Each structure stands twice: as C-alpha cells, then as structure tokens.
C-alpha cells in the first residue's frame, strides 16, 4: 500500500460522506409547517402539528407568546387565563367557553404527551376575544398578525395580451399604496406596509419568451418583478377597488419582424444571431382603441324613466358613466369622453357629434329601461337597425374628389350623417356579444339580451356603438338593484372587461 496516498483517500472519503449526508438531508420530507407570528417585536414562528387535515398549535407555545396562564383541573378541563378573563376547553368537545360564551372550534383539543394541542382557529375564535391586542389569523398563509400592523395580503395575475404586451395585476388587501421603480433587470414595487402577506414567489416562473419572468419577495415590504430579455418599458396605474388597492403594470416588449420582412438564412449552426427585432417606440400603443365615448342617457329636464321611489334614469346613467370613465382612464390609460358630465339636457345629435368629431373608437350609450308591466326585468344591449334601402344606400356611397388647402385635390369618402353606423354594424354586434358574455353571472339579463332597434343616438355614430339598458327602473326589485353600489360596480366592471376584450380582438396579435 502506498502510504502517501492516505491523505488523498481521506479527503475523498470525507467529501463522499459530506455529499451523502447532504443528499440524505435534502431528500428528507419538507420542513414541518409553522405559524409565523408578526408583531411590533418582530417575527417568530411556532410549529404546526397536523392531525388529519386540521392544523393544531401547542397551547404551551401560545402561553409563552401571549403570557397566558393554563391550568388543568381534575376532571380534565383546561382553563386558559389572561388578565382575569378565561377560556375553558373540555377534552373531546369542539367548543370553548370564552368568558361564559360558547364558541365552536373545528376540532376538540388534543393531548400529545404532556402538551395540549388546540386547533389554530382557537387563536381567532377564542383567544382574540380575551386578548387586549388585535389578533388577525390568516390561515391560508399561516400567518398571525398581532396588533395594528399593516400587512397587506398580495395576489398577482399575469396576462399576456399579445406577443409584445402583457399586464401584471397585483392586488393588495387591505389597501396599501406602493411606489414602483425600475432597475436593470427588474421592477421594484415597494409597499407602504410593515410586512407583506404573500407567497414567495408571488408569481411562478414564466416561460422564456415572457416579458415578465416572475415576481418574488425582495425584502419584507417589497416585491421584485423579474423582467425577460424582450422587456422594453412599462406603465403603472393604481386604483382602489373596495378594500383592495390594485396596481396594474402594463409591460411592452420588443416585437419580432413579421413574415413580410426578409428572413435571415437558415442557421448553419446554433450560434447564429437571433432574428432581427424591431423595438417599438415606447408609449406608442399598438391598441386599435384610443378614445371611448360614454353617453349618459337623458339629463336636465329630460329625466328618463322614474322608479316608484323616485330614482331617475338621468342620475343613474351619469353615475355609471363617470365610473366607467374612471376605471378606463385608470386602468387602460385611454381617453374617455363623456357626452355630459353634469345634469343637463344634451341634444341627441350633439352626443354623437362629440364622438365623431373626436374620432372616438367606441361609443357606449347608457340607459335604464321602463315597461308598462311592473314585472319586466333584465338588462339588454341594443345595436342600431336600419331598413334595407338605407343600408344599401350607405354602402353604395362613394368618394368625392375635393380640392385641398394649398392646391391639389383628394378623394373624400362621403358618409351620410344619419347612416354612419351602417358601416360599423358588424363590429357593434361583436361588441354587444362581448358585453353579454361579461354581463353573464354579474348582471341579470333580459330574455332577449341583444336586440336591434332604430335608435336615434346610435345611427350617426361613425364607430362601433351600442346602447346598454342596465335594467328596469319600473320593476321595484330592479330599481333597488340598479341604485345599489355593488351592482353598479359589477356592471361597470363588466363593461370594462368587454372593452378590454373588444380591444384585443381589434389589436394585431391580440386574442381573437
């Protein structure tokens, strides 16, 4: 045997043992679950024991954390005390008596050797009632917030809108404002909070061509949005939806050349350069919709339909129109025109003229319906209707050569004002279908949800246009619903979602 080889053998053996141990450790079952406790004093964790599907924590751990006193009497009942207030637990009973008041627990307490285990809900349902500081148990994230800490629960949703556009939506509940900054390869979202209640990663790793490759927790109060190599820029908007603060990051990226561009020769080796890419001008939206006209029906001395308890159509339409404007401006950054933003009577032609003269890409007229029968119910979406002669006359309309300023002439397509909508009927009906899909399950619909009628306000609209009847003010139940905040939010959200989908159908590369 060569003794000089012994040190080398020992080194190899040590390495082998180390690797084996590491492998053995790494192959162990995942670490046992724990409940994280966040307080002004910092962050701590206590183990969670699983009994069946139920999560339990040791009463001893709670005793140490919250300065409780625990006493077990001869009959087996366990009394938990805090500053003179008591909780009595009885073995085999899924109940607790809290200061004399019974509360239910999902499972009875369980003895494990000398330790008592209690369901984690014991904290929120029993202990929180006698403790002098707020205890906020967030079971899905195994988090207990002690005191008035600001710990928003974060959720994220990522949508790829087209090969060169994506949207990341991050909801914070309760509301927490955030600041957004961009670094080299990621965007940092810093929340005005004490801690974050979020999975890590918040967004799983996305496939390679994605503009956003993932979202992770960067520090106790900040997220890092990791960016893919095609990232070119972003725009952020923040809105409040009930108790949620919603941050929307609209991300745009480099797009590949289309088929009409000369293609590079087939790669001879794997090391060939990537196909050429055209960076778009940032801020220049590829969207086919830039301006939306929202028409609040009626106004001024034209009050529209009245409900039995005095609600007026003109007020309802204005409220909803303003909400639609707010959500579109905040989340899509599009230009929104209201045909009226106060209580005044606007002639019908002025409403359409506002949309036409501002080259709106979509016209939505909001109304509430009325029926001679008090039981008639449901929302409906209406498109314009023309008789056959009018439609043919409009489609046959040709171009007229007119002189232009500075000399020369150009062909101007002449569109009869009253027949402008005939050229957009197919798109209007497509938008009506999208509205119906979005209203489904959110807004009660009439038996015939989409109809056509010779609607004066739509006929002159030189863009896709619909009239939405949100429901019947002449139906007592519907009148209550229509004036309800939650219903209006649902209707506004439905209209917004339909607009987003309609925009996608018009945008090259958008979802069809």
């Amino acid at each position, binding site marked *: 045997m060569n003794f000089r080889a012994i040190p080398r053998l020992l080194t190899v053996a040590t390495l082998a043992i180390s690797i084996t141990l590491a492998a053995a450790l790494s192959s162990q079952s995942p670490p046992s679950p724990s409940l994280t406790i966040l307080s002004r004093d910092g962050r701590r964790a206590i183990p969670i024991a699983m009994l069946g599907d139920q999560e339990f924590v040791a009463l001893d751990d709670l005793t140490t954390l919250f300065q409780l006193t625990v006493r077990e009497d001869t009959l087996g009942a366990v009394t938990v005390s805090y500053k003179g207030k008591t909780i009595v637990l009885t073995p085999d009973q899924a109940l607790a008596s809290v200061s004399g008041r019974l509360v239910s627990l999902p499972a009875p307490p369980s003895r494990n050797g000398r330790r008592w285990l209690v369901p984690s809900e014991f904290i929120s349902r029993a202990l929180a009632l006698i403790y002098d500081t707020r205890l906020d148990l967030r079971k899905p994230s195994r988090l207990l917030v002690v005191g008035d800490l600001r710990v928003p629960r974060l959720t994220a949703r990522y949508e790829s809108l087209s090969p060169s556009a994506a949207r990341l939506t991050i909801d914070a509940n309760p509301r927490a404002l955030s600041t957004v900054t961009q670094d080299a390869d990621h965007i940092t979202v810093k929340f005005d909070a004490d801690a974050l209640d979020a999975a890590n990663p918040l967004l799983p790793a996305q496939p390679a061509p994605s503009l956003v490759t993932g979202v992770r927790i960067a520090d106790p109060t900040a997220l890092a949005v990791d960016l893919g190599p095609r990232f070119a820029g972003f725009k952020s908007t923040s809105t409040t939806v009930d108790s949620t603060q919603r941050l929307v990051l609209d991300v745009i990226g480099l797009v590949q050349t289309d088929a009409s561009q000369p293609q590079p020769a087939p790669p001879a080796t794997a090391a060939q350069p990537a196909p050429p890419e055209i960076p778009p001008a940032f801020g220049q939206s590829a969207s086919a919709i830039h301006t939306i006209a929202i028409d609040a029906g009626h106004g001024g001395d034209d009050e*529209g339909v009245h409900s039995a308890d005095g609600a007026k159509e003109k007020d309802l339409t204005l409220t909803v129109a303003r909400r639609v404007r707010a959500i579109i401006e905040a989340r899509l950054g599009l230009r929104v025109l209201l045909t009226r933003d106060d209580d005044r009577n606007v002639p*019908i032609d002025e409403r359409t003229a506002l949309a036409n003269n501002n080259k709106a890409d979509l016209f939505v007229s909001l*109304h509430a*319906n*009325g029926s*001679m*029968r008090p039981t008639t119910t449901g929302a409906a979406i209406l498109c314009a209707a023309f008789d056959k002669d009018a439609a043919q006359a409009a489609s046959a309309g040709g171009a007229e050569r007119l002189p232009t300023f500075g000399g020369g002439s150009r062909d101007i397509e002449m569109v009869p004002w009253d027949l402008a909508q005939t050229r957009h009927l197919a798109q209007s009906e497509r938008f009506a279908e999208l509205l119906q899909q979005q209203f489904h399950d959110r807004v009660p619909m*009439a038996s015939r949800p989409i109809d056509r009628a010779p609607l004066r306000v739509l006929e002159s609209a030189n863009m896709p246009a619909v009239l939405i009847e949100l429901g019947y*003010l002449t139906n007592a139940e519907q009148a209550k619903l229509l004036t309800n905040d939650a219903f209006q939010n649902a209707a506004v959200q439905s209209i917004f979602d339909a607009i987003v989908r309609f925009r996608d159908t018009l945008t090259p590369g958008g979802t069809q």
Partner: protein
Amino acid sequence: MSTRRLLTITALAIIAIGIVSIVWIRAPRLTSRATPRAAAAPSPTAPAPPGRKIKARLFYVADDGMRLTGVERDIAYGEGATEQAREIVAAQIAPVVEPLVSAVPAGTSVRAVFLTEGGEAYVDLSREVMSAHPGGTLNELLTVYTIVNALTVNLPAVTSVQVLVDGKEVDTLAGHIDLRQPLAKNLSWVQ
C-alpha cells in the same frame, strides 16, 4: 237693365265660377285627409251603414312586458283606405281594461291620418303621446310599433308608417327611437 247692373252680375258670376272651380280642384285632397270633423260628417258618396264592423288585429303589451301581442278585435268600418286607417288607429289607442295593457299613453288621441300613393301612412297623434310617455327604450319601441304594426298588418296597402305629433315631425317620442322616417312593419317585436 242698365249696363252697370249687367257688369255687376257678370262679375259676381265670374267670382262664383272661381270659387266653385277652387272647391272642385281641392276637393279630392281634402277628402283624403281623415280629420275628426270629416270622419264625423256623413260621406256624400257612400255612407257606411251605422254599426258596420270589420275584424282587425290590434297590438298590446304582452304579459312579460318584453313584446307586443296581437288581439283580434271588431272595429268600425271606414270607407276607403284613409278612413279605415284612421279607424284602426283610433281603435288601437282607445283605452283598454286589464288584462290588456296599451303601449300608447292614456289620453293620446288621433288628430289625422294621411296615406300616400307610395304606401306610406302618416299618423298625427296628440301631444299626450309624448308628454304622458313614461320613457324607456322598450316602452318607446312598443309604443311606436303598436301604431306601425296596427296599420301595416291590417292594411296591405300601407308599407310604412311615420308618427307625427301635434301635426309636426318629431325626432323621438322619449329620446330613443328615430321617428324622422317612416318605419316598416316589424313583427320581431310581436310575440
């Protein structure tokens, strides 16, 4: 007879002939307009037997309120298409009792009905059709197509109908339905 008296008689005769000629030329147009006064006066050519009726299909709001429903009714016979059109409209807008519900506001009356050779009917209604209208797109649709369908369904010669109010053309009754052109029969609003 003096020359002066002869001239006076001749002048009176010329004036009388002029008046008769004007009346003669204008008479057909005046008789084609079925005003309430004209309808009340007995026709000089063929007076309708009192109580003579015809069957007509009139339209009322269906039970679900979403559409119209057709109802067969006996209505007064009218001599000639124009007079018959007026009778149909008068019967259509007459007050009804439950379970029928009219889509035409109570208090509305027919001022006149005109027919053209092209098959267009002009129905001139009193202002109550607007001032007493409860509003709402559906209500307005049903009001308009009650009148349009009542004439186009019962009188094959009528192909389209324009509603006038107080003798004037109107944009809409309650802000929704375009009334600036005659509207054709539309049974999609009928059950």
